[in-house]
């Protein structure tokens, strides 16, 4: 008998006879390699129980963490259009179609209004799973309308960034979203309505170079990649390896670009605390 043959009965199952585990039942931690069931992770707000790695989650996960199940989606009727008739290896139409199918989302940002301990808040949260969380006309428009909503209802705004940058398939229109969102946030600022920018993994490119860096208060989750140029481009430019921890939250905090880093489990409490510093005019609500 070979060394590797198992002796006890019942565990000599052929690979083909193995019981199927449903897809997506297990998830592996990118950081420590530990494997957990989705249920386990969900209970832990998608933070690795072993190493504290913050898994990338979607807009609705954040809404659930912060608002519970009680929130109202806003402006979900706005969708992208392939107005430039863009095609690279795939057409923009196909990319949009498959992103919608994959995510059941309307675009790379979702806006919701809800309450944190009875204090109203508008959250615009990005989804990396929708074409890399890229910012096109829809992202810009939804942020612009969120600002209008916040001014009208005297409600604080939080944007949760998670994006690779501008959406190339909308060319100059996507670039102009940097100008559009910044102009709208300047308007919000003149109205003295607080804006919290919550940067999550990853936040790069045009998103960082516009609304993500413009919060009255900027904060992020631990170890999130945050930068203007992507690490690969920088590496190619300087032809050297990048230092450990470069462009991570802790690096940005150290260099003065973030107010603090927040663990996902503390998110709701910290938001409650922040909102309490900015009591909004009740009469206008």
């Amino acid at each position: 008998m070979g060394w590797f043959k198992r002796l006890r009965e019942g565990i000599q199952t052929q690979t083909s006879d193995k019981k199927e585990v449903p897809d997506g039942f297990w998830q592996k931690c990118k950081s420590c390699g530990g494997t957990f069931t989705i249920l386990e992770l969900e209970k832990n707000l998608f933070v690795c129980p072993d190493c504290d790695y913050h898994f990338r989650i979607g807009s609705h996960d954040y809404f659930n963490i912060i608002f519970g199940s009680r929130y109202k989606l806003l402006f979900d009727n706005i969708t992208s259009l392939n107005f430039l008739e863009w095609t690279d290896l795939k057409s923009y139409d196909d990319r949009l179609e498959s992103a919608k199918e994959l995510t059941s989302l309307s675009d790379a940002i979702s806006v919701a209004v809800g309450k944190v301990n009875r204090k109203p808040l508008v959250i615009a949260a990005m989804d990396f799973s929708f074409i890399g969380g890229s910012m096109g006309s829809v992202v810009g428009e939804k942020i612009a309308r969120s600002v209008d909503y916040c001014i009208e209802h005297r409600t604080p705004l939080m944007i949760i960034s998670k994006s690779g940058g501008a959406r190339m398939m909308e060319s100059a229109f996507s670039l102009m979203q940097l100008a559009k969102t910044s102009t709208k946030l300047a308007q919000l600022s003149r109205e003295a309505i607080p804006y919290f920018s919550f940067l999550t993994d990853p936040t790069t490119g045009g998103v960082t170079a516009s609304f993500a860096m413009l919060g009255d208060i900027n904060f992020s989750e631990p170890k999130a990649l945050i930068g203007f140029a992507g690490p690969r481009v920088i590496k190619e430019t300087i032809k050297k390896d990048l230092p450990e921890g470069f462009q991570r939250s802790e690096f940005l905090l150290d260099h003065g670009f973030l107010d603090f880093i927040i663990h996902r489990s503390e998110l709701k409490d910290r938001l409650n605390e922040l909102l309490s510093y900015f009591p909004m005019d009740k009469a206008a609500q």
Partner: protein
Amino acid sequence: MIFFFGYSTDRLSFLISPLINRLIIMVFLDFEQPLESLYEQLETLQKLGAEGDIDITDKVKELESTIKKKKKEIYTELTRWQKVQLSRHPSRPYTLYYINQICKRFTELHGDRKFGDDKAIVGGLGTIDGTTVMIIGHQKGVNTKMRQYRNFGMANPEGYRKAQRLMKMAEKFNIPVVCLIDTPGAFPGLEAEERGQAEAIATNLFEMAQLKVPILCYVIGEGASGGALGIGLGDRTYMLEFTWYTVISPESCSSILWRTWDNKEQAAEALKLTSEDMLSFELIDGIIQEPIGGAHSDPEKMAKALKKHIKATLAEVADMTPDELINNRLEKYDGMGRFVEA
């Protein structure tokens, strides 16, 4: 942006010509090859003439008109990629050239008062026919040494912060701001990230959105992404004819979406990045025609046209109140975007 030179030397050819009294080096782009041989002929002819035996006046005239015709032919049928090449032409005039031509007086102001003085963005106070303006622009180098000194027109955060300092000063003294845009992108370096490249650009956008004095923006060469927009948000935006302005360079776009550097022509077409495209999208307010052959073929003429345009536009916005300026800017940028609303 990975393109340090903006153009590759293998696609250019050089001709040293004594055509005009001073020595000039003529650079021909690949699509200008028919012109090169014509210029060579002209040169040979002029040499013959200089020897004095034969009268060549008629022949020279004939050849010159052939060149003119050919130029017109080539320049009316340019592809988008060829326009990108022109925007990066090594002889193209840059910001400081225009400033010297346009302003009777100019005092360059240096430094961001925080960390350093960026050489890729220049700025200062000047006068245009008696009107004081704050002029700010990207600056590329005119030769190999200067290109390095200017970091190929790729600014670090200090450049954007210097620009903001100068704009705030202009605001304080009610001086209009003119921005000249010409960059292959903000510098993607390690220190640039450490010192907050994204924050520098973002706060510029935020401050420019509510600056109480007029801001006029002119794309005079390359308008690449956030690096261009970082000094490009204003009341009016114009582009010189053979320039481009979009979210990414065609090369980088090709490398990301086509996964090869070779589809830059196709990427340029897809990006629809030329001045004509931008005007048709109503993302800019107008185009300033370049001399046939591009701005570099007659820089003085180009500078004159630019000066005239700046003067006229300054007059247009001169009487606007700060509130009008800020509200118009808000309305203008809020209207940028195309989407479906169900």
